[in-house]
């Protein structure tokens, strides 16, 4: 059996990646991103500090998000999504819609499975 990683073929984003990208449509810092994911998922996703640090670092390297130039004496670095990042999110959104449509069709949808 060959373990094919889904994301190589389908290009799916991890949930962590998607949530961080969504959190920086408005400029946001680490703490804000963390609160965003907790609040918007009703506490289901709680990103650990190390995980969030790694995720931000990866996304900056990929140029999907960018750090804002330091405005004064705030110690917290702020980040904002880039044009490329927005493209990635839009592609993921249409992929998710496809998947949802498929799953709904197979499972039954509208609650009458």
């Amino acid at each position: 059996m060959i373990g094919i990683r889904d994301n190589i073929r389908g290009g799916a984003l991890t949930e962590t990646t998607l949530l961080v990208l969504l959190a920086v449509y408005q400029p946001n810092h680490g703490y804000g991103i963390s609160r965003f994911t907790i609040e918007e998922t009703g506490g289901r996703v709680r990103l650990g500090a190390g995980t969030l640090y790694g995720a931000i670092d990866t996304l900056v390297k990929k140029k999907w998000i960018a750090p804002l130039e330091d405005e004064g004496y705030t110690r917290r670095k702020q980040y904002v999504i880039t044009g490329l990042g927005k493209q990635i999110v839009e592609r993921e959104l249409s992929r998710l819609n496809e998947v949802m449509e498929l799953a709904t069709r197979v499972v039954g949808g509208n609650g009458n499975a």
Partner: protein
Amino acid sequence: MRKGEFRYFVGLLDAQEKWIDRMAANGWRLVKTSILCYEFEPCEPGSYEYRVEFVGALSYSRMQDYRDFLLGLGYKVLTKSLNLNISFGKIRWRPFGKGRGQIATSPGGYNKEIFIIEKKADGEDFDIHSNYEDAIAYYRSIRGMYIALLGVVVMLLVLRLVAPIAAIPWVLFAIAISLLLVPTCLYSRKISMYKALSRTNE
């Protein structure tokens, strides 16, 4: 009233974390660390939680950046040494470091291989690594440290075999190797467990 406690955990991160957490549960908040000593102050029992994070594989600037990030999240960060280094004057070789993280120079990574992260207990989860991929990378960095140290011991063993320069007793090699193999295996098991889980879930 402060109190100091001497403890040496030989790099056992979990044991250290449990001990500090238990002190906090009993009303002692960690306020200062030095090479072998932990200083505590009285606090409301159970009002703080701790996580011990291995950061020895990071370069100094990256470690500072990570520390600032943690402070920005509202945590308090204390640093601690693993005491598993080879020093040579002001330069220290940390066999478990990655790239530039291997060499620690003043005022850089001296005695700062571990972060002790403190959070006010608020009922929320306090996991530092919350997804499989990141947890795997983190445990690999710890295992890498033990493997590097194993490598050093094996190198010394070879030296001892070919040129008995210093009469290091053989039993010391046996002890060192078995002491290092235990955590190496434990972390390997953790890594493969998370790998199995990450095959279907995120």
